[in-house]
């Protein structure tokens, strides 16, 4: 039996005296779309930061495809096939859309720190960046500096950079935050398309997106996971309903 895409056990994170993640155990199956939901301040983004090594772990273990990744640096985890996006758009502002995506594919194509290859001569990098650009619908913005794209376009580019390297485990942190209804629908279709055959973990507040996309949902409350189950079961879970006191799980459109 193959190891899960991500296995988290006994994970803890303290900031000074305050415990933000208080013992999380979670298996993310390979190929599933897994959503992490929970009230504000539950530690969802922190959990992402721990998995992607943006923050150091206080205690516990994280395995990526059966391999311990505690203590690795972000770029080392990325090279093992885990790629993430950010809640606050995190792109290369002065570079064009095309250059943003090309930067995202260079390492995975083995060009490392080369100063003896001419970028213009790297057909594979160009084709891959162009394919992703097509995928995220920004082909007509190819030479536009990323910093002056519209918000929704920047969010699409954020997802593009995340998936461009071909990583098979994708973490998306609130991919539709701040989007209008129609932009959200486009984003959901995009996420569905580009994560086909990959493992997806996402933090999301928009319950429409969560229940539309996820195969399984985990509910994180005060640094602990109180339930992990299929969407339908989560909807009727008493503990979850209590955590979301007064919030309708059906149409809930939570915003921070």
């Amino acid at each position, binding site marked *: 039996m193959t190891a899960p895409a991500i296995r988290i056990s006994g994970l803890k994170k303290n900031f000074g005296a305050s415990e933000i993640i208080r013992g999380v155990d979670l298996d993310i199956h390979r190929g599933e779309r897994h959503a992490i939901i929970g009230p504000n301040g539950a530690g969802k983004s922190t959990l992402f930061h721990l998995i992607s090594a943006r923050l150091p772990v206080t205690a516990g273990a994280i395995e990526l495809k059966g391999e311990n990744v505690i203590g690795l640096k972000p770029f080392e985890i*990325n090279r093992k096939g885990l790629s993430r996006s950010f809640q606050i758009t995190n792109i290369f502002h002065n570079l064009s859309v095309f250059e943003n995506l090309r930067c995202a594919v260079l390492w995975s194509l083995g060009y490392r*720190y080369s100063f003896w290859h001419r*970028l213009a001569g790297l057909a594979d990098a160009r084709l891959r960046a162009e394919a992703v650009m097509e995928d995220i619908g920004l082909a007509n913005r190819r030479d536009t500096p990323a910093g002056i794209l519209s918000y929704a376009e920047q969010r699409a580019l954020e997802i593009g950079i995340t998936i461009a390297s071909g990583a098979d485990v994708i973490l998306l942190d609130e991919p539709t935050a701040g989007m209008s209804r129609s932009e959200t629908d486009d984003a959901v279709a995009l996420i569905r398309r580009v994560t086909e055959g990959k493992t997806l973990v996402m933090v999301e507040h928009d319950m429409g997106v969560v229940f539309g996309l996820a195969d399984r949902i985990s509910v994180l409350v005060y640094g602990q996971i109180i339930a992990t189950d299929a969407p339908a079961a989560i909807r009727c879970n008493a503990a979850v309903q209590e955590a979301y006191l007064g919030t309708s799980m059906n149409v809930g459109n939570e915003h921070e």
Partner: protein
Amino acid sequence: MNSHVSDAVFRRGRLLLWGGFLALAFALPLAFKSGFLVSLLCQIGIMVVFALSYNMLLGQTGLLSFGHAVYYGMGAFITMHMLNIIGKDGSPLTTALLPLVGGLAGMLAGVVLGYVTTKKAGTTFAMISLGIGELVAACALMFPGFFGGEGGVSGNRVVGKGDLLGFTWGPQVEMYGLIVAWAFLATVAMFALTQTPLGRMANAVRDNPERAEFVGYDTQRVRYLMLILSGFFAGVAGSLTAINYEIVTSETLNAHTSGVVLLMTFVGGIGFFYGPIIGAILITVMQIVVGGMTHAWLLYFGLFFLFMVLMAPGGIASVIAIQRNLWMAGLFGRMVPHYLAVALPVLVLLAGLVGLIEMSYALLAGEGVGAGDTATKVMKMELHLNTPGPWLAAVGVTAVGMALTRWIGGRTRAAWNAALSTLHGDKA
């Protein structure tokens, strides 16, 4: 496939540009047979390489270094010692290849010192680079055996016997040829570097180090490699300076030299590859030409730098780029009258300021009128600084210049803003 066609055209245009510059560089001393001009051009060639190497850090990787002269100086000292070691056994060929040795020395300094400095980016990097710079400058005075103490290390670039295709590097104009050749090679190499994966990832690390880590790159490694390569080209520049002046002093690697290269690069424009070239040419000319006319040239230099930081923080290259965009959009023509209109009051203002500065300087520095001091030369008149006349005149001219500049400048600014908004409106 459209982009490929335009790429090819662009590349041919670029070749023409490179060739044109090379031809111009070689033609200048032939056209004007002036020893002063050749010396000036030599210094410019060296500074172009130095400033471009600095911009590999500042503009391309986002690293503000206050100690770049260290790599330049190491290249210079090692070259000078090599020159002296080779001595009589040398040949013009070995001399011509010494910049390679200087480059390797700068690179080695980068390998050693960069390992420490590039651990961090941002302010921390700037501070550490300052510390390392001071450290090496202090060493220069502590180890006179290598650095030559106060007097520096000198040598003779015409070593050994014979010639290389007729060149002995003795005459300054031959030295200039050597500098142009090296400066051209180094510039092409540095430009090529911007078109490689490492060069592009340096931009990515500059823009957003966190994201660069999450696409698989060790940002520390990117910074380190860029610093090592930048050290190489700084070393080449230092080597050329050693061969050109046949003397290297500790000034070569101190904070002043680091400061000058920073100013050159910044004034020229860090956001464009050619920015530092403009800055190196302009500042060197100012240093030598204005420095030859007035003792107060550092003051002018400071004022000029202030003006640039406030009015055109993107440097001269960014101003040129905006004019080019206006030109492409057909808006440049409508700006020309405004530029001409504002030029006159600015000249009046400048004349007033120059008068005030020169007179104050002459008075405070205790130099008599006409004792070769420039106030009389520039304005072609004998001034008596102990009478109120010249002072009132200078203050008056300054005041009129300032008022006119404000008045006409405001209208130029309005026209400029209108042109820019039309430009951006067209784009959107």
